[in-house]
Each structure stands twice: as C-alpha cells, then as structure tokens.
C-alpha cells in the first residue's frame, strides 16, 4: 500500500467538501476518479500532496504522514502533480521548467539536471522543443512539458488533476497517450478526469465521488456497465449521453 487515506474531512468555510474519505492505493495501481464538478474529487487529489490541508483524518504516502504539518512537505519528493491549467513557468523555457526543481530540490549539477530533463522531455516526445517558451507551445505540448517536469523528479506517484480539461478536443489525445504509456510502465497514478474512454481502458479501479463521499468504486467494466448505485447510474447516464 503506497497511499492510505483514512476518514479525511475537509471544509471550506461552512461547506464540507470531503465527508470522510477512505482510500488505499497499491503500488502500480491506476485509479481514475470521476464525478461532477464540485463533488470534491479535485480537493481529494490536492489533499494527497498537501496543497490543501485537511481538518481531520490521516493521509499516508509511502510512509510520510501528510496530515502532520511537520512532515507534510516531504510528500513533494514522492508525488508529482499535473494541473488543469498546466502551470508551466512562463518565464522559463521547457528545459528550464524541468531543470528548476532538479537543481534547487535535488541539487543536481547543471549538466546532470539537463541530461535528466532531456530524457523526460524525450519521453513525452518533446525533446526538440526544449528551448521553447510555454507561450510558443500548443496546449497539448505545454501539458506534456508539465508531465515531463513532474516525471523528472522521479516521483513514486503521479496525480493528474483534470489534465486534459483545458485542452481543445483535438489535443486531448496526445496527452492521454503519454498518460497511458506511463500507466503501462507501472506508475502509480491517481487521475481526476472527464475522459471516460481513458477511465475505461486504462484504469485498474474507478472511483465515483459525489458530494464529498466515495459513492462507488470498482473495476471499470463493472462501474461503466453495471453501476450499482443510482447516483452513479445517473451521472454516467448524463456524461455518456453527451
């Protein structure tokens, strides 16, 4: 077990967005979290790498107690994250985006960092764009650089927070392809997405989250063909019709 979430609760003001979440993830598992916007699925992801602090409960990531403020910052060593809005650093080239943390956090030499960064960029098929600035790249390319940036840190777990939602439809494929490759290599992944195709063919387990609770989970074929909970049925009916 590499991630263990125990009875996690989180409120923003008066609104409780996570109402007691329990989740354990095995090494190498690919988990896709689906649910309507505002259901709490992104918040759940963000609590796992301490971008949101939790009100109660426990989160363990490969031995790190994320719920403990003193230890929480260690989680970034093991967990990479890819954001909906890419969040590339606009003042740095693709290469520099990747080397920044390698140098500052992993304290690599310039040459070493660049070597690792080029490998990561090659992996997402963008080695030849290393010298470009984010504004000079398409949305799909930017997101692939963002993936390379996270991968270069050699994380044990990758979080994807609606990584394809801000992309034009024709650019979604190149990003999901990188994600599929990563899954195949055995990366542990937690993926919040609206791409039901990806969930169906890549996930080991699909979680349906609604109003801050995990309503239902199971293998993709079970969730997509025979959901047992009426709320899951309703949600899938809506998204698959569209």
């Amino acid at each position, binding site marked *: 077990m590499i991630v263990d979430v125990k009875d996690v609760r989180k409120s923003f003001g008066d609104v409780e967005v996570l109402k007691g979440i329990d989740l354990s993830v095995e090494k190498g598992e690919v988990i896709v979290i689906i649910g309507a916007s505002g259901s709490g699925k992104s918040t759940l992801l963000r609590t796992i790498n301490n971008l949101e602090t939790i009100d109660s409960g426990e989160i363990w990531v490969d031995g790190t107690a994320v719920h403990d403020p003193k230890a929480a910052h260690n989680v*970034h060593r093991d967990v990479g994250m890819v954001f909906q*809005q890419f969040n590339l*650093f606009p*003042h740095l080239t693709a290469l520099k985006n990747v080397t*920044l*943390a390698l140098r500052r*956090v992993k304290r690599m030499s310039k040459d070493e960092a660049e070597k690792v960064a080029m490998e990561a960029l090659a992996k997402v098929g963008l080695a030849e764009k290393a010298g470009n600035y984010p504004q000079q790249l398409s949305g799909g390319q930017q997101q692939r650089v963002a993936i390379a940036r996270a991968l270069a*840190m050699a994380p044990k777990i990758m979080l994807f927070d609606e990584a394809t939602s801000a992309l034009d439809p024709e650019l979604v494929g190149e990003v999901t392809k990188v994600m599929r490759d990563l899954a195949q290599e055995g990366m542990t992944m937690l993926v919040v997405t609206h791409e039901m195709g990806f969930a169906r063919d890549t996930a080991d387990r699909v979680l349906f989250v609604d109003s801050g609770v995990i309503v239902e989970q199971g293998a993709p074929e079970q969730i997509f063909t025979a959901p047992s909970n009426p709320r899951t049925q309703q949600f899938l009916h809506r998204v698959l019709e569209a």
Partner: protein
Amino acid sequence: MGWAGIWESRELLLLGFWFTVILTVVTIITSTVLGFIVALGRTAHIPILGPILRGYLELFRGTPLLIQILFIYFGSAYLNFTGVTVFAAIVIAMTLYYGAYVSEIFRAGFESVPYGQQEAGRSLGLSRFHVIRDVIVPQTVTIVRPPLVGQYISLVKGTALASVIGYADLVRQGQGIIDRIGSPFAVFLVVAALYFVISYPMSLIERHLEKRTLQA
C-alpha cells in the same frame, strides 16, 4: 531678468544638480530594497508582522513627506542622535516614505502571478524561498517596471524637499543665487528646467516600458 547672473552662477547650479542626482540615486536604491522587503513580509503571513507593516504603510502614506523629514531631522537632534546628518535624515525619511509606495507596487506584482504558479512550485518540492526567487520574482519584473519608474519620477521631485533642511541641492543653490542676484522668477525657471532634464527622460522610459508590458 538676470540671465547673465544665472549664467555666471552656473557652477553652483551644476553642483546642486549633482547633489540632487546623488540623493535621487541613493534613495531609489534604498527605497526599492525596503519596499521589496516589506512586500515580501506582507506575503509571509507571520502573525505580528502583518499589522506592524500595515501600520507602517498607513503612517508613511497618510502623512506628508515634508513633515516626516522635519520630524526625523529635528527629532534626532532633539534625541542627540549625532550621526543623523542632513543627508542621513533626508535619506531615512525618503526611504521610509517612498519604500511604502514601492512596497505596494511589489505586492501588486506578486499578486499578479497566478496562484497556480506557487502550487506548481510547491508540488515540485521547491522551498518557499525558491518559489519566490525562481518562480514569482522573475515573473513580476517586467510588469512591475512601469509603475516603479513612475514612482522614481515622483521621488526625483521629492528630493526638492531636502532643501528645506539645508541640503545643498538644486533648490538650495537656486535660493543662494537669488540671495545674491535677485531674479527669483528666472532662477526658479532654470531650476525647474534642470529637474525636467532629470525627470523627462524617466517619463519617456516609463511610457516605453508601459507599451512593452501592454504588448506582452
């Protein structure tokens, strides 16, 4: 009108010009450093620091520079702080005063960087220091430049107040010349023109930078 007398006093005016330039350069540096530190302090969310810094901003932006200069100059004499010369008093006062305005510019600059940038930095494991130095600050440099230069233009003109406590700047030299040759109108016109010589190029730079940030 006394133009001949002014021409004969040109060396005094030149001297005053340099005194004004020196004061300008020194206080631009000190107020920028102070403003930057205060802006950083305001983003830090340290319990007591926030109210203290806000009090500082309120005090120095809510009262005139002239009375701050007088207060620091006469006040340090009153308290027997012998180290506080005319130059020191004026630099301290102007640094505190313009530093307050400069810090607001930096704060706005920091806030103009989307929050996702900080999150991306943190999720890569960057420390707070590195997030600020490598992610936030580089992105604020271009956007912060036009208002900063605008503030420096204000500062150039603010240096004129140094003459009130006897700093030998342009205004002071002008007054000295008037004492000897009269013609206050002509002398102050020349003094104003010399300030224009410093300030106008800065205005052009400000406008140029502003156009550049608008394009970006």
